[in-house]
């Protein structure tokens, strides 16, 4: 049978055309979302917007200072918890593959990563926000943050979401380092803990750091777990035991309100949040490229 070369070529070209088309199509949602938020939000943003708390209904002006400060405090507290724990666990997983503990904790990390954020929120709500007392007869252990929504509880929820990302990225970065590197250090009589601190971590630093940045970018927009934990506050607050506003929560509250002024505030906050995530992603890319150690 004579091969119909012409038809085959046409089919190939149609197929190529289709995949090019869809490769282009998937960029559209991002472009549309970006353009829309920039159009709606960028006009709201000015110095006043960043340094003032929201104005009451009917008054003009007002800004998102409370949410900006709140988000930064909450993220900082989550990072203080999640980064060291995540890095150390990641080091264990990369150093001891094949052990039972590594298998099961790796499994837990994967499952934890898949737990819906609202579930994390509700669990933290029951642990940290609701008051409880453990009666041990002689002593009573009381929930120190019980009875009030608090920034601390929000940070705990976000830290739980952040940890699996830090663990896995640390583990994967360190696994890529050649074993000869560790041998070189050990053969000089360097004790194990110094090998990790002085050789392994510095060599994998750019990868670990980019994992941390990505985990922050991932949780900075989380709203669900904050609904029951940090909740929100119309005032600028630095008290970590009290409710605290955050960018995503402010967007949620103000976007669902019936007032146009508040909608604009939400658009402005969305724009700021988007910029945060965008900058974090770009910085991550630059770090991985610039600081990468040539092995």
């Amino acid at each position, binding site marked *: 049978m004579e091969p119909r070369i012409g038809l085959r070529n046409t089919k190939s070209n149609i197929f190529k055309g289709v995949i090019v088309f869809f490769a282009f199509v998937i960029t559209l949602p991002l472009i549309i979302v970006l353009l829309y938020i920039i159009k709606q939000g960028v006009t709201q943003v000015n110095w006043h917007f960043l340094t003032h708390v929201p104005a009451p209904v009917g008054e003009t002006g007002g800004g998102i200072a409370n949410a900006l400060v709140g988000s930064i405090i909450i993220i900082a507290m989550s990072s203080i918890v999640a980064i060291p724990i995540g890095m150390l666990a990641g080091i264990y997983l990369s150093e001891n593959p094949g052990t039972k503990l590594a298998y099961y904790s790796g499994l837990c990390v994967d499952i934890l990563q898949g737990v819906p954020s609202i579930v994390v929120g509700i669990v933290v709500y029951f642990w940290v926000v609701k008051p409880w007392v453990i009666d041990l007869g002689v002593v009573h252990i009381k929930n120190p943050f019980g009875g009030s929504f608090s920034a601390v509880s929000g940070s705990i929820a976000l830290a739980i979401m952040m940890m699996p990302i830090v663990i896995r990225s640390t583990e994967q970065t360190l696994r890529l380092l050649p074993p*000869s590197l560790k041998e*070189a250090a050990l053969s*000089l*009589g*360097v004790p194990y803990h110094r090998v990790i601190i002085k050789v392994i971590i510095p*060599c994998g*630093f750019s990868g670990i750091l980019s994992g941390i940045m990505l985990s922050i970018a991932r949780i900075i927009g989380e709203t669900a777990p904050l609904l029951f934990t940090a909740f929100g506050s119309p005032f600028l607050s630095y008290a970590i035991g009290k409710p605290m506003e955050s960018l995503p929560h402010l967007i949620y509250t103000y976007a669902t309100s019936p007032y146009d002024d508040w909608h604009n505030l939400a658009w402005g906050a969305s724009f700021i949040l988007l910029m945060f995530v965008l900058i974090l992603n770009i910085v991550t890319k630059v770090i991985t490229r610039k600081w990468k150690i*040539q*092995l």
Partner: protein
Amino acid sequence: MENTIVSASKFNAWFGDNHVVKDVSIGIEKNQVIAVMGPSGCGKTTFLRCINRMHELIPGATAKGSLKLYNDEVYTMNPIYVRYKIGMVFQRPNPFPNLSIYDNVIAGYKLNGLKVAKADQDNIVEKSLTSAALWKEVKDSLHKKGTFLSGGQQQRLCIARAIAMEPEVILFDEPTSALDPISTSSVEQLFHELKANYTLIIVTHNMQQAARVSDKTAFFYMGELVEFDDTKQMFTAPSDVRTQNYITGRFS
């Protein structure tokens, strides 16, 4: 033997159930170059790695028997101290990619947190790089990263790093197998100069190399030390038929 620096008697090593070094007894004298040769999987590298206790770092690896540095049992000493005294150079050059050439040489002190005055550091770096025949090539770029050097230069940098700790013995695990012929000959040249101050134990696949550089040669086969003798004697009139077969290329 008066001059014996490393000695083993009835020394055995395992990976799990796999018995890779069997009843090895050997006495290595000071300031000599010892070549350890044998076919792949004969236990020569494992034996070498036992001498500075790098063997035990592999999960499931065990060792039994007597292995001495002078009169001290290596396996009752602190491994960190053993590795100060017995340096090692690996098959592939492995300078620390995050450190400069200078810091790579001084890495043994820096990574161990040993405080050394700046002037002494400069001295150690210059002396070690000179001994490793690398000083002239890198003296103007000491603060560049070690990984910018060529493979042969990197390997000499690794030798300088081992020398800087002033060990008694330096172990070489197929140190030239990843290098081109010119770099190989410069490293071999180095062995002759280093033996004035150190004892060198070199695992090699390459019989010509063993013949060129060593004073004595140990031949391992199937985990056993078949023969240990003066290199000349071994290559001209081996006493064991297995050695003869190996040298004449009847198996490899």
